[in-house]
């Protein structure tokens, strides 16, 4: 836009800019048709619910969820949450769960990707087997592991007793101290293949020439990894870790089916807790307020997520 500065006052300029945007949007009006179906569906199922959640969080709504009878209570719901002991317990669980699951899933995924990165007989089969836990349903995984952890006839108990390491099978998912780590083992079992897939693809972008050059320069396996491979994996690692963290933060099925959050809230994380408040105890207002808090936390995470993604996109533009 060519416009002599100084002659035009600021609001007018802003207006011109806005018209520029509208004009451009109009020029591209047919392009929007392609995304329209996607946007419409997302609006119905996402924007509307977000609005509703925020509204409900300021009301008390009867268990029947009859919206006519809801009562405005201001920020009482938020106060109730922040002053409850359970909230802090659940929050601590959520962070332990998210951090530990993400760290282990990423590490095991990276290890598997690296170990599978050179040709050997049966590599394809091995890779396929390692991916299967990620494909099967979390409900099936929960049942399989619930059975493995079974306090009388579980596989782990049987092995420990058989090896003479324990007198009787341990109560892994029925005791406060061991339940969370035990569930994390299940979650990592399902998730590490995802990290493995992402990082395997990342490894393919490491230029062979560079690795060979490093070898010629006398770098050992570890140095080659640290100075050549690892820097090339940074972009995909960031995205993988963020995706893992988000999906762990949002887990529901494994704790819900395996323990229902028990014993005494030891395996409740935010999502299961919100679910129980809403659909178990019909405390709609409190559950909504919880959701808003969760939403805000996720927005913070989301900020980093988008930043990581767009920096990945920018790199790709430059390349």
């Amino acid at each position, binding site marked *: 836009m060519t416009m002599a500065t100084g002659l035009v006052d600021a609001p007018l300029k802003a207006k011109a800019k806005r018209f520029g945007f509208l004009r451009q*949007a109009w020029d591209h009006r047919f*392009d929007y048709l*392609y*995304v329209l179906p996607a946007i419409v569906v997302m609006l119905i199922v996402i924007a509307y619910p977000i609005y509703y959640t925020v509204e409900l969080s300021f009301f008390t709504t009867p268990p029947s969820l009859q919206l006519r009878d809801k009562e405005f209570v201001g920020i009482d719901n938020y106060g109730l949450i922040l002053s409850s002991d359970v909230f802090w317990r659940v929050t601590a669980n959520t962070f332990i769960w998210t951090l530990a699951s993400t760290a282990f899933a990423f590490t095991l995924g990276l290890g598997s990707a690296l170990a599978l990165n050179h040709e050997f007989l049966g590599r394809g089969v091995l890779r396929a087997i390692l*991916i299967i836990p990620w494909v099967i349903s979390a409900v099936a995984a929960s*049942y399989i592991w619930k*059975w493995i952890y079974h306090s009388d006839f579980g596989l782990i108990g049987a092995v420990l007793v058989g090896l003479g390491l324990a007198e009787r099978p341990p109560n892994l998912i029925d005791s406060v101290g061991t339940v969370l780590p035990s569930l994390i083992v299940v979650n990592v079992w399902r998730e590490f293949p995802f990290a493995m897939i992402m990082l395997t693809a990342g490894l393919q972008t490491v230029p062979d020439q560079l690795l060979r050059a490093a070898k010629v320069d006398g770098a050992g396996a*570890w140095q080659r990894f640290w100075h050549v491979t690892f820097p090339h994996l940074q972009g995909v690692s960031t995205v993988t870790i963020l995706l893992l963290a988000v999906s762990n933060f949002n887990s529901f099925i494994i704790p819900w089916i395996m323990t229902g959050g028990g014993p005494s809230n030891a395996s409740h994380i935010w999502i299961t807790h919100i679910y129980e408040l809403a659909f178990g105890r019909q405390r709609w207002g409190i559950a909504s307020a919880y959701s808003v808090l*969760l939403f805000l936390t996720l927005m913070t995470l989301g900020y980093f997520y988008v930043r990581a993604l767009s920096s990945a996109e920018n790199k790709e533009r430059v390349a």
Partner: protein
Amino acid sequence: MSMTSIVTTRRGKPIDAWRWIGRIFLVMMLFYTAVPMAWMLLTSIKSGFAAMQLPPQWLPNEPTLASYKKLLDPNNSVGQDFLRFFWNSLFVSTMTTALAVIVAVPAAYAFSRFDFPGRKFLFFAVLLRNMFPAVIFLVPLFILMRLLGLVNTHGSLILTYLTFGLPLAIWLLKGFYDNIPYQLEQAARIDGATRFQAFVLIVMPLSAPGIVATAIYSFIGAWNEYIFAYTFLNKNEQLTLPVGIQRFFSENTTDFPGLMAASFMMSLPVVVLFLLLQRYFVRALTEGAVKH
């Protein structure tokens, strides 16, 4: 020299210690991954009595397919339920997949090709959806479904799965479109095709692998989904597999062979589908995050 320790074999060939560490690690991962699945299979072919012994029968003394027969027998109530859940899952997943492809293809194409104002914002809005857990949306969605009269219908699931699967579906497909040279479409347009013809005749066939990958992704996602199905459906005859199995075994808490057989049957279709098409799938998933 490097920090690598060098181990020398009997023949005197130096072997990279890291390679051995890698192998040992892989064996451990194989155990971690495969033992639970093997135990599921072994348990599923035991009798209920044989499954509950201490010390356990590592391998079943008298293997039996009784649990599978029961699940697949349309003449008893367990089999009737299981088969119905199976068909429900198949219906919901297939519908979701078909709709997801129809909606995601044009959107992904637009994100890949056009430079319209707000394009970036829209794309991140789509991606941001990935961030938010189903539970945040449950209460309002439940109200919305009630409003639309969709509670206790498969429509509620299809609509929700569609939305929640779209962001990644679009992302996956966009990666594929990014890799199809734009010059092909330009050539087609000069050769006499309209923009739409260029898309249908040239781009669509080339993106078939991407569409397959997106379809598998949607199918697996819908097949395995639990929380919406658990919330929106009440009637036994409408339940999908994950919820149906959970309902069933919360009433029969000790039938572990049956539970394992059901878990296996539930996993089988998606695992087979995945193994058949994993090449496309893995490629698509990583295309978005990694550029070649």
